């Protein structure tokens, strides 16, 4: 089937860098090694697969895992009307390659992931907070950020 084709090709070409490949509910998903991200992304971006659209780039925090964060990339091919999901595990404090060179919209998406989770992106042109203010302490979507913690910028009226 067409669905298996992308994953099969990825496996053939990148072998050991593909840790897991499956298609739950028909959505092709590849779990890859962190260091191979850039070359795999570039391969998927170009023809014949032509995943020209980066639908989403986000991060998930799993505090129980040894590699705490999981980056998730959703790609879409306009030419073939097909999707693929790429995931990779990331230990705390590690940096991952920036995809700004391949998809321009990765710029703000990576800034969001940096803001909310504290993930650093190597090669990002302007890695600043996107949503929170400059003086904000911590990364609010991490599971260990206190639920009730508030950081008002002006002191509350009495």
């Amino acid at each position, binding site marked *: 089937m067409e669905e298996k084709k992308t994953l099969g090709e990825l496996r053939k070409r990148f072998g050991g860098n593909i840790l897991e490949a499956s298609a739950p509910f028909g959505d092709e998903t590849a779990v890859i090694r962190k260091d191979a991200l850039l070359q795999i992304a570039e391969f998927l971006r170009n023809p014949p697969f032509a995943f020209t659209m980066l639908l989403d780039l986000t991060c998930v925090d799993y505090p129980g895992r040894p590699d705490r964060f999981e980056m998730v990339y959703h790609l879409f091919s306009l030419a073939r009307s097909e999707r693929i999901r790429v995931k990779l595990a990331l230990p705390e404090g590690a940096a991952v390659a920036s995809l700004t060179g391949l998809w321009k919209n990765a710029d703000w998406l990576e800034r969001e992931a940096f803001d909310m989770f504290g993930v650093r992106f190597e090669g990002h042109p302007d890695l600043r907070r996107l949503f929170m203010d400059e003086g904000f302490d911590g990364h*609010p979507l991490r599971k260990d950020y206190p639920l009730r913690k508030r950081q008002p910028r002006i002191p509350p009226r009495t």
Partner: protein
Amino acid sequence: MTSMPGHFVTTRFNHILGWARKFSLFHYPYVTACCGMEYMSTACAHFDIDRFGAGMTRFSPRQSDLLLVVGTVTQKLAPVLKTVYDQMTEPKWVIAFGACAVSGGIYDNYAVVQGIDQIIPVDVFIPGCPPRPEMVLDGLLKLQEKIQKQEQDWRWKKRKP
């Protein structure tokens, strides 16, 4: 106000000033979220806020005396709201419009101010997510009642030692 048989009227200055002020509210819409839709239908022809003398929308806080805080105010936005309030000239009133402005609403999280009364004083709270225009008009009438009853402030009164 008391009507007398000799065709003249007596009143108190405080009373007539309140009467004048409550029907000439210049409002500044500080619209940040979906409550803005309800604000629009309140302000426009369907519900027509102008019937109550509050139809003049000013887009500068320096020219307005009623601040309508319509929608969610985040911590990042809080200093801006405070500045806008400080820029308004006295006398001034504030309406918190909708659940988010009143209490933070459903957003009980790191980013949202839990009620704008933590930042600026508020005269009337209008709950609802979003409130119907009827509720907004009811809140406006409540504010007018409050303005009518309050101790009016005027300049030469302040100068007295």
